[in-house]
């Protein structure tokens, strides 16, 4: 009786093991390549890239340090535990204290005497004080080793008169620059792109003035300028038919 029972049980175990193995193998193989429980075509999470299709500025991030605006409750201030003072041992020898010299203070800087009124420096055509690319054929002023030369005071630089327009250019190109597609080693390189803006704000003559040395930066910077449909029309107070822009892309360092 035991033998028949034992044999049947062993056979039953073996059959069940084989069936279970077959079942698991089939289940694994038939679903190979898919994540469990997800039909990929309908995965509908909110995608960050979609925001660039809708021409609205991105929402400012919440300031975590602002106690009123954050969701995290700030911890209540902890009352410090009362300090216990050690009673000195009766036979302890006091440690001698070194006599210290009074610290030397540097002399207070005397304020510089007031300057005579200086002549107004006419700034060359620059908004950001970065590296100059040498002497450019500028409109109203030119920097030479001998100093700054300028023609007439009314002909001041575009960047000084229409700083808001230059800011618009910065923002529009920056919003089309997909920094997420940059290589990690792009930081430290700088790309210069030249283009012209016509009277109605359309962009022409886009070209890379000076490659940065990093192909991902070249590609993303050039496509950023190309993807701008048009800038605002040139300021009414400006008389020219178009302006030339030298735009640089300087990827930020990532920690």
């Amino acid at each position, binding site marked *: 009786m035991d033998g028949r029972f034992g044999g049947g049980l062993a056979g039953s175990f073996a059959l069940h093991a084989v069936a279970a193995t077959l079942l698991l193998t089939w289940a694994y193989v038939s679903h190979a390549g898919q994540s469990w429980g997800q039909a990929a075509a309908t995965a509908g999470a909110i*995608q960050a890239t979609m925001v660039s299709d*809708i*021409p609205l500025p991105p929402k400012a991030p919440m300031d975590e340090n602002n106690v009123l605006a954050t969701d995290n409750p700030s911890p209540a201030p902890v009352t410090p535990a009362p300090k216990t003072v050690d009673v000195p041992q009766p036979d302890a020898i006091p440690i001698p204290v070194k006599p210290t010299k009074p610290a030397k203070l540097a002399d207070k800087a005397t304020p510089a005497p007031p300057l005579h009124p200086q002549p107004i420096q006419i700034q060359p055509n620059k908004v950001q004080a970065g590296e100059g690319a040498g002497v450019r054929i500028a409109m109203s002023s030119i920097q030479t080793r001998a100093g700054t030369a300028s023609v007439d005071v009314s*002909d001041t630089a575009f960047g000084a008169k229409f700083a*808001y327009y230059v800011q618009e250019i910065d*923002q529009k190109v920056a919003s089309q620059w997909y920094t997420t597609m940059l290589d990690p080693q792009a930081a430290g390189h*700088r790309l210069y792109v030249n283009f012209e803006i016509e009277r109605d704000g359309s962009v022409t003559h886009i070209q890379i003035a000076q490659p940065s040395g990093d192909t991902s930066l070249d590609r993303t910077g050039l496509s950023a300028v190309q993807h701008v449909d048009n800038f605002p029309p040139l300021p009414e107070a400006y008389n020219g038919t178009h302006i030339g822009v*030298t735009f640089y892309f300087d990827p930020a360092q990532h920690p």
Partner: protein
Amino acid sequence: MDCSTSKSRQPSRPYPFRILAMVVSLAAAFVLLALPVLHALGQDNIFTGTSTGAAATIRLAVADFKPLAADPQTAALKTTFDTTLYADLASAGIFDIVSKSLMPPGTPGAPSEMQLQSYSNAPASASFVAFGSLGMVGSKLIANGFLFDAKNLQYPQVLAKQYSEDPTEDSARQIAHRFADEIILRLGGGTPGIAESKIYYVKISGGGTPNVTKEIWEMDYDGANQHAITHLGTISLSPRISPDSSRLAFSSLGRNGFQIRMYSLLLGRAVNFPEVGGTNISPAWSPDGREIAYSSSRTDTPEIWISDASGNLARRITSFRGGNVSPTYNPKTGAQIAFVSGRTSVPQIYIMNSDGSAVQQMTDGGYATSPSWSPNGQVIAFAWDRKYGPGAPGGQDIYVMEAATKKWIQLTHDGGRCDFPSWSPDGRHIVYANSADGREAHTRIWTMLADGSQRRPLTGPGADMPNWSWK
């Protein structure tokens, strides 16, 4: 940023240094002499750049305008003007408007009275200030508007505009709209403002009763100036304004069933559009204004037909059973049409070329209707009930889907049944119809920014199927 300039210094010998100075000053003289020629070419140069890929909102302070005269008519018009200008700029979606409690005291009326420091310092901390003066001068309403750059103390002026109109409420509102549009054009990255655009919609009278009539009405984009256009006394649906705002196409129930009707806003009367058999609904204009696509069941099942703007030379471009309705053209290219088809037994959104080829399904389930293509041609807004079916909780909301990748975002939540989204010309706003309890007579038209924020109603109950003008 790496600003190192390493100049190599030569040991200064008098002779080469003098040569160098002479050469440089000759070059300078040459350039100075050539400057008038160069200036005539009209080219200025800007050197600027960026280190981040982000844009920021512009902080704009909108000051109350100073009254030019002290009479009560000026005061009333000035109140209308101030509130309209503030509302236009606050709803533009690109500004961070300085709240009224943070504004510095005083109302500057002219550049000479303007103290920019008080606006650029805290608490206002504004980047730009809009101010000016308004009042009756003689028999005309004169408005002087200025936009100043608060960060540029040397050259602050961005805009200086003067408007002169008849002294009515409506013209005070229109002046405010035009000034707001000009500000948005200059500061908003080149996209014109929408303050002068109109919304055409269906007004339901006697809703819920057997005597219900639906007429086509028109209103300003902010809900003001609502007035009727058609007086047909029957059911008129889905108004669609032409791209040049001269003609209005809609579908109306007449003796021969639903037919496409054309109304000329310039002539103030209906113009001819041929009647055909079947049910003809949901007209759509192509972006060049030369063609109209609509759904017609003259061949027994609703298919998409395209005719020219006068209704002639109609040709069929779909041939699927199940009903094909609500075509809408891609306004950027005019080469694609999005439409609703019931060929899979529930209405889904499809895209095809304007000749009917390359049909592509965009939604993958639920009950999807009323597609509307954004002006930049990249996203489609539509109404979708994702949980549709017997026993399902339902809930129809407005979604936007990227046409290229089919990724979508839900814009409205838990507000009741939403339908008929329509994009604004700048692509930043969407107007839609919403009924909180699902009853047709309680449907109102709401507006929101295209990311789902700043939702507010534009009409009272009894308004449906809005359509935003093209400019």
